[in-house]
């Protein structure tokens, strides 16, 4: 198995926040913590684009590099996880992360004013017994051990958010882009779900 990755197709994301809701529900994430969120650029104007963002499980993760307690580790499948028992809630990882993935719960916390850091686990749980209550309480559901992909991607209605082995995800996106076609005439539905190639064929044949 290679590396687990997320990929969000901005042409397809409709800012429904289904991924955010799925994540919060699956892991019973507390108030004030959003492991995943949808970011919209140029909201309300032509050319508006949305993208779903969470931990990108970086190959060379800056959170791992800056952590003073070395509580981060990377699994064989490239998923970046951390041990909450070692986390001191210093917030260095939050400053280092270019995606704002590390989250800190509000209110009374177990350790430090900000509490333990919480972030997307790629639905892979954490360093506790697989499927145990302790794992669920600290890190959330371990869907990967059940042979399932992260729920945010599986729940995505337009399949804008893809998850899985980087090679498989890249193949899916490559095929999508080929069907999509290129040029100014390809936009909206055609760009999202294909059809641009047919338009270009018609254009080449002079049928416009």
């Amino acid at each position: 198995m290679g590396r687990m990755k997320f990929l969000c197709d901005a042409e397809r994301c409709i800012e429904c926040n289904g991924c955010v809701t799925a994540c919060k529900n699956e892991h019973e994430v507390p108030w004030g913590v959003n492991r995943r969120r949808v970011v919209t650029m140029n909201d309300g104007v032509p050319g508006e684009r949305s993208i779903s963002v969470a931990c990108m499980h970086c190959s060379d993760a800056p959170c791992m590099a800056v952590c003073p307690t070395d509580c981060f580790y990377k699994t064989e499948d490239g998923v970046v996880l951390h041990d909450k028992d070692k986390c001191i809630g210093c917030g260095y990882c939050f400053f280092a992360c270019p995606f704002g993935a590390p989250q800190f719960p509000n209110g009374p916390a177990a350790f430090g004013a900000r509490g333990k850091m919480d972030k997307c686990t790629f639905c892979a749980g954490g360093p506790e017994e697989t499927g145990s209550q302790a794992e669920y309480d600290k890190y959330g559901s371990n869907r990967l051990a059940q042979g399932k992909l992260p729920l945010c991607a599986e729940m995505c209605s337009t399949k804008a958010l893809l998850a899985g082995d980087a090679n498989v995800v890249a193949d899916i996106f490559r095929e999508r882009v080929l069907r999509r076609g290129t040029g100014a005439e390809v936009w909206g539905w055609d760009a999202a779900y294909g059809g641009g190639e047919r338009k270009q064929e018609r254009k080449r044949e002079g049928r416009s």
Partner: protein
Amino acid sequence: MSTPILKRLTLLAVASGLLGGLAACSEVPQVTVYEQGQYSGKTDTRPWEGGAFNGDREAWEKALRERARGQSEYNRIQ
């Protein structure tokens, strides 16, 4: 005859009791020594170990690959 042996046994029991009591007073290190660049937390089991796959890595990889491919609607309509 048996008195010296009993005495020795009693002494041994008392000594071991004292040693045990002293051990309980020992101090657990309060400061963790972190090693630079080394993961210091608990070890995690791999996803195919335990749970649904019982160590069958190939079955786990196959299940995930199929699931990932299922995300492409073009595969589903063909």
